[in-house]
């Protein structure tokens, strides 16, 4: 299962919903058919997958060497102005007049210095598919769809780490899956795992492909045939239980389809990781995902009621669908975060909620980051966090500012000017220090308004000024466009990535400052000639701490091996996080990228405990993606 959550994708729920409507419009079939109560019956013709938003041939809709949809990207138009193409997002078709200047100022990049990716995948470079004929015969007998096509295989050989995208643009992976299979139901998965055990092959589960932990990369030294088990065709909602507010869903469904289909029945899960357009339910489970609105709905571990997983040792599941049980350590916790090392999650029963009646965005400007963090801490203390509350630092605030589309009316621009005047001149906020919190409230109209007042009252105590709904909404937009921006940056010698951590409240400020400073210092030491863009935001609040998200990018002109330099700096930044009392990961997971710190993170004995589970469940390492352990 693919990891969820590269820092991109979701956007605001309402825009997501608008987006979904558009998408569903031009995709054949409707989601209705998916609500079939019958499980997959292998004989008599398969029940068949529902028509999801992402086709089986992913290349038809998605970029082969970058993030997201083919039709959506940042470009510089003929006038040299930045523009976002396509009609899927709110920003689509809009001109961003100040963006070019921001890029030039922030990165020292120039439009004249351009790198170009290969135009398309060169099939001849792709490692050949080596699959044993006996296995193929057995596979054909099961009627499960498969492919040995080079494009299909390359598409499932990577996630969205910087180095992976870089390889796609300029080189080729040394090892990729030999064959892609598309089971359409739990029973298909059982058959595939049995065959893999029989022929001693390696399975790497694939969900949405949004991993940012090198989790999908094939181990180079793997000599066995690698099967990429693509769960995307297992995407039906099997049933909805309105009395208990649960739904049983096949694990391959992607976030946007899940919400869309539940929405048609008036429900939602409320789980909205930033990658929800592409990432899958199974992937969320396998990486311990976290959603933007976890304050109301909870993280994946709070949402899951029941999990069915196919392992080489057999099927693991609980015997009932209850809110809690005391039967020894919770076996769900072996599964959640197992990153595809133990088996394939096939079906998940997940909590659902009625769709919220009312949503409202908001934003607050603080004189500085310290005050902002203090305010978030107080909000967390009073346990009155809205569905989402995020605090971006000044650099990210300016970044958001640069993404402001051209304003249509003079009146709006006049208002903007007035707002700016009020905040900087009248209230004395320094535009180079101030920072912004974005808010999203959800629920009954009345309660939302009440809640809103409570939060703004707290903010006032910390010197915060309400800064309007628009700014809030744009803040959330920033989250999903940033991954598209990376592809633009790559064209102009700018590489970057995001990474995250969780940290106790009292260390938030120190950690943010030290990590940013470490990045700047490492860049200097490693010969990066331009000051890096290193910025952070507090994206989740908890009783005891917060989740902090960093963006880091730099202009690599003049460096011969930018990816290596980048990785060394990212590694240093992670060391710094750990030294500052932060965690190895809040929700991206470990994959292969962060394995080296696992022992330090969970102790020798802890690692041994996980290993012994792996040894029992999968003694022949069929699930051999080498993640985590």
């Amino acid at each position: 299962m693919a990891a969820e959550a590269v820092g991109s994708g979701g956007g605001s729920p309402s825009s997501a919903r608008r987006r979904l409507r558009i998408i569903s419009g031009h995709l054949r079939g409707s989601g209705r058919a998916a609500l079939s109560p019958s499980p997959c019956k292998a004989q008599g013709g398969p029940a068949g997958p529902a028509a999801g938003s992402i086709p089986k041939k992913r290349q038809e809709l998605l970029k082969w060497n970058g993030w997201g949809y083919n039709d959506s990207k940042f470009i510089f138009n003929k006038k040299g102005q930045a523009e976002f193409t396509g009609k899927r997002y709110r920003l689509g078709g809009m001109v961003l007049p100040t963006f070019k200047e921001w890029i030039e100022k922030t990165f020292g990049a120039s439009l004249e210095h351009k790198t170009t990716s290969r135009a398309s995948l060169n099939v001849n470079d792709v490692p050949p598919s080596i699959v044993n004929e006996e296995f193929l015969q057995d596979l054909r007998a099961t009627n499960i769809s498969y492919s040995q096509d080079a494009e299909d295989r390359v598409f499932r050989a990577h996630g969205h780490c910087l180095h992976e995208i870089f390889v796609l643009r300029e080189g080729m992976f040394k090892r990729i899956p030999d064959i892609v299979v598309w089971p359409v139901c739990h029973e298909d998965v059982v058959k595939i795992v049995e065959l893999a055990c029989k022929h001693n092959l390696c399975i790497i589960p694939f969900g949405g492909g949004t991993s940012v932990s090198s989790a999908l990369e094939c181990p180079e030294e793997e000599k066995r045939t690698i099967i990429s088990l693509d769960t995307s065709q297992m995407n039906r909602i099997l049933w909805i239980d309105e009395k208990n507010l649960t739904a049983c869903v096949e694990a391959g469904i992607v976030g946007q389809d899940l919400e869309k289909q539940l929405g048609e029945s008036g429900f939602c899960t409320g789980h909205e990781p930033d990658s929800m357009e592409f990432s899958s339910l199974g992937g969320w489970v396998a990486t311990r995902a976290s959603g933007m609105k976890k304050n109301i709905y909870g993280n994946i571990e709070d949402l899951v009621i029941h999990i069915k997983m196919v392992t080489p040792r057999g099927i693991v599941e609980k015997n009932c669908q209850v809110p809690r049980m005391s039967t020894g350590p919770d076996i769900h916790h072996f599964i959640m975060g197992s990153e595809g090392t133990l088996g394939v999650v096939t079906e998940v029963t997940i909590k659902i909620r009625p769709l919220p009646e009312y949503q409202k965005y908001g934003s607050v400007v603080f004189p500085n980051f310290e005050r902002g963090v203090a305010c978030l801490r107080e909000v967390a203390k009073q346990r009155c966090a809205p569905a989402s509350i995020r605090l971006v630092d000044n650099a990210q605030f300016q970044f958001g500012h640069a993404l402001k589309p051209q304003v249509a009316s003079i009146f709006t621009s006049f208002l903007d000017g007035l707002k700016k005047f009020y905040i900087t001149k009248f209230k004395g906020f320094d535009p180079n220090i101030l920072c912004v919190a974005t808010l999203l409230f959800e629920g009954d109209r009345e309660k939302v308004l009440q809640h809103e007042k409570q939060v703004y009252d707290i903010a006032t105590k910390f010197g915060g000024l309400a800064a309007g709904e628009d700014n809030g909404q744009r803040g959330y937009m920033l989250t999903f466009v940033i991954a598209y921006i990376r592809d633009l940056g790559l064209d102009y010698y700018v590489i970057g990535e995001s990474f995250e951590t969780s940290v106790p409240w009292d260390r938030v400020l120190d950690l943010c400052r030290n990590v940013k400073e470490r990045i700047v210092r490492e860049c200097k030491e490693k010969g990066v000639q331009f000051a890096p863009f290193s910025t952070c935001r507090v994206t989740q609040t908890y009783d005891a701490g917060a989740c902090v998200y960093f963006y880091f990018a730099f202009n690599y002109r003049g460096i011969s091996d930018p990816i290596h330099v980048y990785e060394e700096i990212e590694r240093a930044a992670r060391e710094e996080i750990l030294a500052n009392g932060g965690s190895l990961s809040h929700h991206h997971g470990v994959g292969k990228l962060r394995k080296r710190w696992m022992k330090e993170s969970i102790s020798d004995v802890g690692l041994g405990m996980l290993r012994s589970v792996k040894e029992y469940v999968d003694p022949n390492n069929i699930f051999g993606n080498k993640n985590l352990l």
Partner: protein
Amino acid sequence: MYSKELTSKKRDEFEDILEERRLSSDLRYAMKCYTPVIYKGLSPCKPNAIKTAVLQSEQVQYVIKQLAKEMGESPDIIQEEATEILDEMGHSMQLGAVRFFISFCLSELFCKYWSNIVCSVFLFQLQHAIQEHPVVLLPSHRSYVDFLMLSYLLYTYDLALPVIAAGIDFLGMKIVGELLRRAGAFFMRRSFGGNRLYWAVFAEYVKTMLRNGYAPIEFFLEGTRSRTAKTLTPKFGLLSIVMEPFFKREVFDTYLVPISISYERILEESLYAYELLGVPKPKESTSGLLKARRILSDNFGTIHIYVGQPVSLRTLASGRINLCPYNLVPRHLPQKPSEDIQEFVSDVAYKMELLQIENMVLSPWVLVAAVLLQNLPAMDFELLIEKTVWLKGLTQTFGGFIEWPDNLCAKKAVTSALALHSNIARLVNGHVVLNDKGEEDGAIGEIVFKRALAILMCGNYRNQLLNVFVRPSLVALALQMTRSFRKEEVYSCFSILRDVFSDEFIFFPGISLKDFEEGCFLLTKCDAIQTTQQEIYLTDKGSVIVSFLSAMFRPFVEGYQLIFRYLSKETREAFTEKQFVPGVRNFVFQLLEKGNTQCYEALSSDMQKNALAALVQMGVVLLIFKIITIEDPATGPHIILTVS
């Protein structure tokens, strides 16, 4: 560990800061426009605001609550106590006072009594450091003059003025104490290990200033003025306090700046000699200082200040320490540092002291003193010059940093050194002699005392050479003692000597072999020895050097033997340190009176304490008793060898 580069070029890096001062008025200097560079993250605040912040800090409040619970008292009472501690401790730096005190008074003094104050002009590094991260200034400590020397320097160069850790005894001096306080001194009690409240308040006070980047923090690693001009072994308490914010990642980095302040002539030279001989040190008092002023009618030569390159604590710590323990306990709880951390702090302390030593400036007189002490009671002037020049070459080979202008002829250098130190030695009929006689012949005790005084005073100058010479010299000593060519044997002897003298000289902990190799390297460099894989040979030229080097350290070898002898023969039961020092002193004094030893330096209380400390550290105090009684103590260095 030790820099091998020659330092002859360093001289070009110095600049006289009195020169300009002499040309303009003190008043104008005091009123000069002072806009120093400051720490980039500084949030400016008044001294009282710091005190309030300290009192209200979680750290101090935690200890207050703990103590209140344990003693069953109300927290208010303990809070009150904490406030009193803070008031006693806190500085109240005022620019006005600094201007008056530092620029006006000190300029006055400095200009009058010192011919030059010369400082390294590489201050831009310090300037850069002060802006980047919190800075800790770590000067050497040879004299009271050190206290405001740096403030004077930083003021002159428009750099942020430091706050300075001073001993509480200064507060006994009425006006001076308060003046120092206004000039940025804060006061710490000499010992407060057991007092948790005091420790918490003090540590938090220092850390608050550091975290805010309020001002550079200045303190003396040696803890007190070195009475012997040898660098004292470092104290770790304050250093570990200033390092903690980095360990806890409350700051990104901290710069440690080793600073060497070298005096051509030390203000307290005779005072120190008296003190070492057990004539009690006068309590710090204002009138004492005024009297000290009278001493100042003399010329005291040149002061050299070398501001070393700021050392990044982060770089030192990189890859060395596991910060995990700090992540598992709330940061405001007092936490005993782990063994790793303690070891690291100790390593850093030694490293900083070694850097101080490296940049100490040695005057020609230091060389003269070293030669003279090997040629008592009198030495031919020409021979002295010749030997001094020879020693100059050797010192430079060993990396010593000598202030001896290229164009200055040897005779002039020695003559002017003698002139500046005429209270110690003088030229009589073409011979140089120590001033070791009283006005008239007194009792034998009186004679011994006077002679000891002169030798200790002279010795305190020679001492400035010792840390530069100690590694090759201990190799030389080991060669003489073992009379062996086998490297292994020589090394094992070296290593014992190194352990025995571990409190006497500064060695980086735990790298005995490296020190040995360094010593051999330097001896090879001056052609004294040749080494093969297994063996060490003396060259023809080598015997002169080797015997000079071992003679240089002989007072210590013999002194330690006397002390061991005292321990083995004279004390049969447990004793306290208070009994120990006068006990040894009397013992040695009697031997000197009878003429049974010539080792006057064994009278030095410093040496006595160091010897005892080393023995205790090695855990051999008891062992020593047995072995020394077997050996004949008069036969020389072999005794120490047998300890092993």
